[in-house]
């Protein structure tokens, strides 16, 4: 965190000054480790074994925060008798289909509380005129389509609040994690039992009524074929310790781009629409009713999904969207599974996707398996790159590594390339959403130079041109473009006004005035809203994201700086900061609490933050039979975006690779999984292409683990940092880090060139031989790791080979993000040049016995 988010790290240092213990778990000793109380070197990719053992420590020593766990989590829920654990199936859960690699989650479900629940649910299905079908929806990354809440369960289910029923979540969890012992941690992660004990004690001592512990991760956890489950393990641990929804608790994802949170909320992502509404799936959603049925009427705020969906369609198609035409639902294109970026790159290579916009991103350096990226670009009809600098993605046709080896020839590449210069952050006004969901508006300072334009201007202009060219068309396929509400006020230079777009995102009522809250949205077409979770950012026609009230003029929550979705709540699920009866868990950790005397004795939730709860819902409120949506949220259900109001220790639905986390080895690993017979995540998504061969597991040819990471002085793929003299001077050349033991084993000299090889590529870098990389002892063997900062490419002031060329494509099945951990060889000296490089890598593949008939497998198991 000190490396990648230095300014955010000042708060960790503040905490340390006040007595907090800082624990840093990372394969490398970094700037963070240097100021931490404990550094725990871990083998890259083994986090579930580590966190799972901490879960086991809490459960087997009765160290959980029992009152919190019983009231606020699903620990008491009884799971279907058919459910089988990895304990029963040697690493698989029930419902696995080896043919497709998918799970059918029906056996993970909550047992209904009564026959009435089953009947109600069946009735609901009948009201939609067909049979139950939503259970399969996780298969198209559906889990991510609930980015601000969990997948919808069918009923709240039967509970045993004594937690003694052998089929209750708490007992299932206990059995599942029992094999995650400190000894196993030593064998899998390379972390000794004393260090484990020290961390486990510090963590549990610092959790409970009076104290809370926070987890931070700089999104390294997401870069694994088990990434979502790594974060789930941390969530389970934090829920058991009562560290969610309370001040000083939580799990902080430290994301890496100025508005990467914003581009997830208002997504440029294939599977969701603004506000985490799912993109319609062709096999399930052919009408508005079918589209919203999974969530509609369920307990919690997703129950009002129809209002959010209709309001979005109104903001897209304006007057054309009417109740008679399903508010233009049919204008939405449908997805049919995975259309994520890596799958799309494969389509480009295969010639079924021919036009590509790359906007402020540099995939030939920043995406994994750079060769596949470049092969895709070389097979397009046209490519539009918008950036500040001449990045590698724009120049692939003349200077990519494949040109040097002869695999690509400039004169044979038919791709037409447009490079359009873009405006910087000070040359346009607009809002970024930072990693804690805070929108902050930037004012424009200067005009962009020359042909540089904002994306707002470019896309508005492009849309206008396309609409003009298609005007008069009677082709049904052109209706969504021609009926689009695409008219924004412009400034003197013809640029659309960002605040007008923000107001459309915020939403407007029948009179055209900005709405104040998503609770005002209607499903009858009388309101429009471009992103329901952002509703309120423009309340009373005031741009609240632009607020800059100094922190010294307000309390520590600082609610008047920027605006945080939803409803300016700074801390999510803060109802959990109070005990079930509404009083603070402790004075020390008081945040939101129930004031029974407020509002003339009607009572309301009060505190320094906006309560993440219905403001006047009493703690003893029990929803009446048949209540729907927000009315069905009980007074002790803090997780209001979940259909059961509880934090999920066990996911009965919505996670593609199991209801609980299980440790699997990365697709390339020198280590045999000691926990289960199942070596790799059985649901991992493989990318089957000859340019993506996987190193066989346990290979003596590729004996070392490598992992990639960022440096303070550079930014992702380098377009915004390798081009600046200051930053180049601070980090002037690519390097890799290895331990002295590995250096001795391979004859590597500090400061000299080395070559790093996988089945995909070989790259060169200078080697830093340092104790910062630890040789990890796993049982009776050592595992060595090679650390690779990944920022480099061929253009800019500092240049070098791209470590992402080494990385294979094997994706997490929930979110389709790649596994950055792989195996490699490392040798002294520079890599071969030209065609000799191709032959060099080919020789490695042959020696390692890579199965080119099934290059995506790695050969460990199916």
């Amino acid at each position: 965190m000190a490396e990648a988010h230095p300014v955010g790290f000042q708060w960790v240092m503040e905490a340390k000054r006040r007595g907090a213990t800082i624990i840093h778990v990372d394969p490398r000793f970094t700037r963070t480790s240097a100021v931490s109380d404990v550094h725990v070197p871990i083998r890259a990719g083994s986090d579930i074994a580590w966190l799972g053992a901490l879960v086991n420590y809490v459960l087997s020593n009765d160290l959980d925060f029992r009152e919190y766990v019983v009231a606020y989590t699903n620990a008491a829920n009884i799971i279907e008798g058919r459910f089988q654990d990895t304990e029963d199936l040697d690493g698989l859960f029930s419902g696995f289909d080896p043919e497709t690699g998918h799970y059918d989650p029906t056996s993970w479900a909550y047992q209904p509380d009564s026959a009435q629940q089953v009947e109600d649910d069946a009735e609901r299905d009948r009201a939609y005129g067909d049979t139950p079908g939503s259970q399969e929806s996780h298969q198209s990354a559906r889990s991510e389509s609930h980015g601000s809440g969990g997948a919808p369960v069918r009923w709240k289910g039967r509970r045993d609040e004594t937690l003694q029923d052998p089929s209750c979540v708490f007992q299932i969890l206990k059995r599942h994690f029992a094999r995650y012992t400190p000894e196993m941690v030593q064998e899998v992660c390379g972390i000794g039992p004393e260090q484990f004990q020290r961390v486990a004690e510090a963590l549990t001592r610092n959790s409970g009524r009076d104290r809370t512990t926070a987890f931070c991760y700089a999104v390294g956890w997401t870069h694994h074929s088990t990434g979502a489950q790594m974060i789930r393990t941390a969530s389970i641990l934090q829920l058991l310790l009562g560290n969610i929804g309370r001040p000083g608790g939580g799990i902080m994802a430290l994301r890496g781009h100025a508005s990467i949170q914003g581009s997830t909320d208002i997504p440029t992502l294939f599977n969701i629409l603004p506000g985490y509404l799912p993109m319609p799936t062709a096999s399930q959603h052919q009408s508005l009713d079918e589209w919203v049925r999974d969530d509609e009427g369920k307990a919690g705020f997703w129950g009002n999904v129809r209002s959010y969906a209709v309001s979005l369609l109104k903001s897209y198609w304006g007057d054309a969207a009417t109740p008679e035409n399903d508010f233009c639902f049919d204008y939405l294109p449908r997805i049919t599974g995975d259309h994520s970026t890596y799958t799309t790159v494969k389509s480009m290579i295969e010639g079924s996707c021919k036009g590509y916009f790359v906007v402020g991103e540099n995939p030939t350096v920043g995406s994994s398996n750079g060769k596949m990226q470049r092969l895709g670009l070389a097979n397009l009809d046209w490519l539009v790159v918008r950036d500040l600098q001449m990045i590698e993605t724009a120049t692939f046709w003349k200077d990519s590594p494949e040109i040097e080896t002869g695999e690509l020839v400039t004169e044979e590449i038919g791709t037409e390339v447009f490079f359009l210069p873009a405006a910087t952050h000070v040359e346009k006004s607009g809002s970024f959403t930072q990693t804690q969901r805070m929108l902050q508006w930037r004012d424009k300072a200067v005009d962009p130079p020359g042909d540089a334009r904002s994306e707002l201007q470019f896309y508005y202009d492009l849309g206008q041109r396309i609409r003009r060219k298609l005007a008069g068309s009677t082709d049904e396929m052109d209706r969504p473009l021609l009926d689009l509400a695409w008219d924004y006020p412009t400034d003197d230079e013809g640029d659309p006004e960002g605040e007008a777009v923000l107001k459309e995102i915020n939403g407007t009522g029948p009179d055209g005035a900005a709405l104040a809250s998503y609770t005002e949205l209607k499903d009858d077409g009388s309101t429009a809203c471009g992103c329901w979770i952002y509703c309120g950012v423009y309340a009373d026609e005031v741009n609240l994201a632009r607020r800059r009230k100094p922190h010294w003029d307000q309390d520590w929550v600082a609610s008047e700086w920027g605006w945080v979705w939803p409803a300016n709540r700074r801390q999510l699920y803060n109802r959990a900061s109070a005990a079930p009866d509404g009083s603070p868990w402790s004075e020390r950790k008081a945040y939101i609490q129930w004031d029974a005397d407020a509002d003339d004795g009607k009572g309301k939730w009060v505190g320094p933050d906006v309560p993440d709860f219905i403001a006047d819902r009493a703690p003893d409120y029990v929803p009446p039979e048949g209540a729907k949506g927000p009315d069905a949220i009980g007074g002790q259900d803090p997780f209001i975006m979940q259909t059961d109001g509880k934090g999920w220790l066990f996911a009965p639905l919505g996670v593609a690779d199991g209801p609980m986390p299980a440790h699997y080895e990365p697709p390339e690993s020198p280590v045999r999984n000691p926990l289960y017979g199942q070596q790799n995540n059985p649901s991992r998504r493989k990318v089957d292409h000859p340019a993506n061969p996987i190193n066989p597991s346990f290979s003596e040819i590729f004996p070392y683990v490598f992992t990639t990471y960022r440096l303070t002085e550079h930014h992702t793929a380098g377009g915004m940092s390798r081009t600046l003299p200051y930053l180049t001077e601070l980090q002037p050349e690519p390097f890799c880090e290895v331990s002295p033991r590995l250096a001795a084993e391979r004859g590597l000299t500090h400061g000299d060139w080395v070559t790093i090889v996988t089945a995909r590529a070989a790259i060169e870098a200078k080697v830093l031989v340092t104790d910062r990389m630890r040789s990890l002892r796993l049982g009776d063997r050592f595992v060595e790791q090679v650390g690779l900062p990944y920022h480099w490419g061929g253009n800019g002031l500092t240049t070098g080979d791209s470590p992402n060329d080494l990385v294979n494509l094997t994706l997490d099945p929930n979110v389709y993000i790649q596994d950055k951990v792989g195996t490699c060889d490392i040798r002294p000296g520079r890599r071969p040049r030209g065609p000799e490089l191709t032959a060099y890598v080919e020789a490695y593949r042959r020696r390692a016995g890579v199965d080119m008939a099934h290059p995506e497998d790695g050969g460990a198991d199916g």
Partner: protein
Amino acid sequence: MAEADRNRTCLTRMPGHNGFEDRARHQTRYASATHLRRLIGSLCFRRPCRGYIAEVNAFLGWPAIRQATGRDRLGRGAAAMSKRSETLEPRTVKADKVVDSVCPYCAVGCAQKVFVKDGKVAQIEGNPASPISRGRLCPKGSASKQLVTSPSRVTKVRYRRPYATEWEDLDLDTAVDMIADRVIKTRKQFWEWEADGNRTRRTMGIASLGGATLDNEENYLMKKLYTAMGAIQIENQARI
């Protein structure tokens, strides 16, 4: 420049901003020469002559001595200044306007103040009022003026014809118009009404990557336009 002055006042008020506090406190404070002269005198056994006094005065003017004897013990303020550097003013003072902004690198969201002089960015600094960053910027944020003013920024449209070996110039208006034509053509060429018997109403010919470095308003227009086009392969760094 009132805004800039207010900034500096803020900085000195900032708890935890010791560097700035030091600087303010040490401003114009020099070593107490009288004290030092007495000290040297007491160590001397013979009466000082005229030349000796001049030597002592010159010696007392050395930055290291000023640092050792004055209040600027860290040598980051007055002690390190020369006659010339005393007359220098920061670029921020001369700015015509100061604009509120946010750092464009990682997602911490550090607040920036952009100082503009003659229509150009003169300096970018951290905004101490921010409850997130309290005025700090990391090396990248501190270098963001270079990001904006970099001489290697490309400011003209570049165009590469199919199979060409070099870039060509192209007028911006023509370029956007050509792109619109290509969107229309490719969209139609890869249009798909149905897949596996289900209505899809989409084009599989057009993809997009990027958004995490852009504004919310820009992402909104992108997704809206792409959705109306029927393009679904829309992705950004959040997937990577």
